[in-house]
């Protein structure tokens, strides 16, 4: 393994860590604009995380080591996921994990988060864990199906190869990808606790999922969890780019110029994606929790349809 590759890898991880809260802030800002509100500063997520790191951590009396370890595990898995997903260039760590392993990694984060939420034994914690697992058991296969369609097209499950092969094909030849893009958008909204499924801005007990699980966390643990949530959104966006907008990712041999070129391209993609998420969130209303499985079943069915379309049309 050569040193430039490792350096690129580290740089990409650093970039992901740095950009993720900004992306979160950007989505919030777009949402505020669309709703005729005064937008908070773009840098608000950074300030919030910094503030939280400074505070004293308060743990519940009965919190076990699992509860304390979970934020680190969730954060760690999200960082490793960011290192696997080709956002700007294809990376040396990618052979260690293909797209299925990536989904497994995201599932690990979910399981640890749910277990931590059940650890203290408050009513909200278990409620949040139960709902999160409910979202997860439908969203995870839907995401896998989305990835499977892309890998059927490109005959591999290695994400950089999928991305590279899709990028070199002509545009607009894949009706199956259109279906899966819809499915992926639904999964992204559900998995990142965005509006039709969950509302990141409220603590309304009847509907909350993600916030219910974090209710017991404070200070640096909360900061890590929030940062991990931002990274998760960033990661999902990058998975989406790798599958549906694969152009402009620098491959291994492309050299530093391609890498430099990929940075502004990623910024443009992220800006557009953030605007899109904010638009969807503004235009839709929060679903009742019991309707969430239907929403996710729709996503799953769209992905299955995408696969059927691919198998029928061969495209």
């Amino acid at each position, binding site marked *: 393994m050569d040193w430039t590759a490792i350096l690129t890898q580290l740089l990409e991880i650093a970039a992901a860590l740095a950009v993720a809260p900004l992306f979160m802030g950007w989505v919030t800002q777009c949402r505020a604009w669309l709703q005729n509100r005064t937008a908070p500063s773009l840098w608000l997520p950074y300030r919030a995380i910094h503030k939280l*790191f*400074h505070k*004293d*951590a*308060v*743990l*519940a009396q*009965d*919190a*076990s080591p699992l509860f304390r370890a979970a934020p*680190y*595990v969730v*954060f*760690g898995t999200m*960082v*490793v996921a960011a*290192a696997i997903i080709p956002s700007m260039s294809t990376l040396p*760590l990618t*052979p*260690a*994990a*293909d797209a*299925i*392993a990536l989904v*497994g*990694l995201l*599932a*690990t984060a979910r*399981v640890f988060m749910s*277990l931590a939420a*059940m*650890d203290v*034994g*408050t*009513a909200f*914690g*278990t409620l949040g*864990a*139960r709902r999160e*697992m409910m979202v*997860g*058991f439908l969203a*995870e*296969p839907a995401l*896998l199906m989305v990835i*499977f369609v892309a*890998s*059927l097209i490109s*005959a*591999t*499950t*290695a994400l950089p190869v999928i991305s590279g092969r899709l990028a070199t094909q002509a545009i607009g030849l894949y009706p199956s990808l259109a279906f899966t893009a819809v499915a992926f958008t639904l999964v992204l909204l559900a998995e990142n606790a965005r509006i039709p499924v969950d509302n990141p801005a409220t603590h309304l007990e009847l509907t909350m999922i993600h916030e219910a699980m974090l*209710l*017991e966390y404070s200070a*640096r643990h909360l900061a*890590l969890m929030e940062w991990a949530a931002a990274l998760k959104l960033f990661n999902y966006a990058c998975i989406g780019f790798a599958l549906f907008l694969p152009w402009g990712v620098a491959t291994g041999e492309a050299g530093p110029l391609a890498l430099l070129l990929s940075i502004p391209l990623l910024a443009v993609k992220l800006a557009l994606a953030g605007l899109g998420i904010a638009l969807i969130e503004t235009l839709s209303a929060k679903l009742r929790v019991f309707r969430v499985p239907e929403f996710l079943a729709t996503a*799953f069915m769209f*992905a299955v349809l995408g696969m059927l379309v691919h*198998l*029928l049309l061969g495209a």
Partner: protein
Amino acid sequence: MHMHLASYDNQRIIADKSRRNQRAPAHGPTAAPVRVPVELHIPLTACLALLGAWVLIGIAGLVRPRSVRFAGRTLFPLGAIVGLAIAVTGAAGLAMSAERLVLPLGLPDLPFHLRRDALASVFLAMLGATSVGISLFAAGYFRRGEGTPPGLLCFQYHVFLASMGFVFLADDAYAFMVAWESMALSSYFLVISQHRIPEIRRAGFLYFLIAHVGAISILLCFGVLQGGSWQFTFDAMRDAQLSSGAATAAFVLALIGFGAKAGLVPLHVWLPEAHPAAPSPVSALMSGVMLKTAVYGALRVVFDLLGRPHWSWGLLPLAVGLGSAFYGVVFAAVQADMKRLLAYSSIENLGIAFAGLGLAIVFDGVGMRTLAVLATIATIYHCVNHAFMKSLLFLGTGAVLHSTGERNLGRLGGLLRRMPWTGWIVLVGVLAIAGLPPLNGFVSEWLLLQAFLFASDVPVPFVDMLLPLCAAAVALCAALAGYVMVKFFGIVFLGQPREAALGQAHDCGRLERMGMMWLAAGCVLLGLFPAQVVVALEQVTGELLGYPLDRPPAPWWLLAPLADREVSYGPLVFLLATAAVIAVTAVVVRALYHQRVRRSAAWDCGFARLDARMQDTAEGFGQPIRHLFQPFFRIERELPTPFDTDPRYRVTVGDRIWGWVYAPLGALVQRVANTVAYVQRGRIADYLMYSFLTLVALLALVLWIGPRS
């Protein structure tokens, strides 16, 4: 479409002949499996001696049947050592060529034939390795005054172990059935070790009944397989030329027989009854190892005895397996008894193994060799993984059961603080069975998904679309398994204790801890070194299918099974990278900020009367699944009215299959029995008259047939 099929049939027959005659085919330089020819019968004799040692240990238990100390401190640890030796012998035997032995035992013209090949070796290694952990646990587990005396338990337990070993070694139908039946019998007695409780006797009877339905089916299958030669050695069956109808019949009979042992729907009903009834080490052994004998048997019959199967056969185990997997995991999600939950989860896992088998048959039938090998490896890998994880979880429930006396999830909770050793070790098993990287459950799932995904190249119309869609079902089952396991661990070990008595819960003893740690270590190692495991399993597929995998060159830490797909998975890197990130994060946070922690009461949202009863119960946690999959369940609800002074809420979730299949069947048997009872009145005059009438009828028959011939 017809042309397609016809051409495959031709290919199949040609390939069939070549396979029968020479097992190592000449299909290019990569195809020949690497094998060291060894003439000596070392592993087979060693295995035999070790299985004999297990029986001897069992008999030694009968010498002092009431002594807990003797059985627990001496015999079970000895059994664990023998298990370790069997595991080592099995693993060593993997690389060696098959060897045979004829024992001077059995019927006059049919002595016991034994054969140890790679397939038998891998299952023996699994049996041995799993039994080490379970025996160590059992050494500390059995107590005085619980049903069957410990010495007798020790006898039944070791006979059970040895008979499972003989199942893997048997090389004729007679030896196989003897081993199979002694396995069923000894495990039946183990299940009803608490025989004073009527429900346990009932569960035991159900188990016994379905085990025998399966055994009859297997017996019939062997009857078809001998193909008119009336030779019941497996060699004769390998050489028998069966018509396609007879081969299909043998296949279906084998699937029913082994499916009954594996707990495939609809023959699964014994599993959720028998597992909770049995003592935990026995549940672990039954779920972890005994269910795998079914997969072994199916592999043996389909790929070894029948030769090359037709591709369309594969669709049956595939459909039944996926159906069972889904059924099992949905039911597991709504269970409130922790052992029943695990039993349903076993149905799921065995379903997935059979789906892998079906996929392998399809691939093999259409001549996609490397993918057939991949699917077979995934199946066997999954069996080995499940042996470790499920045994570990059952042992964990045993530890909880001993310390709290409670199997009901609704009365447990918060045990991670009371039983830290058990809790943390069980967490490894939970994460593994939930299919999370970098543990072992994920690897076999990964391999299986890869196989499903590339089934779109199967050159049969419709099937090439159906198979990738099955990947969706596998993904759904895997995700639901995560749900089930979060429920299991979260409700038992996390949160607040739901009963005051749980405050006295104590952790398990040293031997029990060692047993569980052994199994947890197995889960971790099988997960971290998949490339090595796959290379070992390639010996099995090399012998069974005649092909190894088409692996590209890859470093030792990377699992890359398919050269033309550019897919790889490196769990070690995965784990190290995550660990490094976590360590760096912790260090940086400490360096830049601080590590101050304050303890306080849990945040109650200002309600101030938060108590342990406000946590989700098992029913509550499973509620979304119950709601979503309502048509699957037979639900009985008892809801309070608004005016109840003492409101009660009760819900029971039952299995519809009981009402659809077993209740009508039971009623039918009862009706037939009643009709027969009319004839059986117990008066000797009647019976003499029956004999007389029979003789007359026979004479009439002879007279009627005689002139014609």
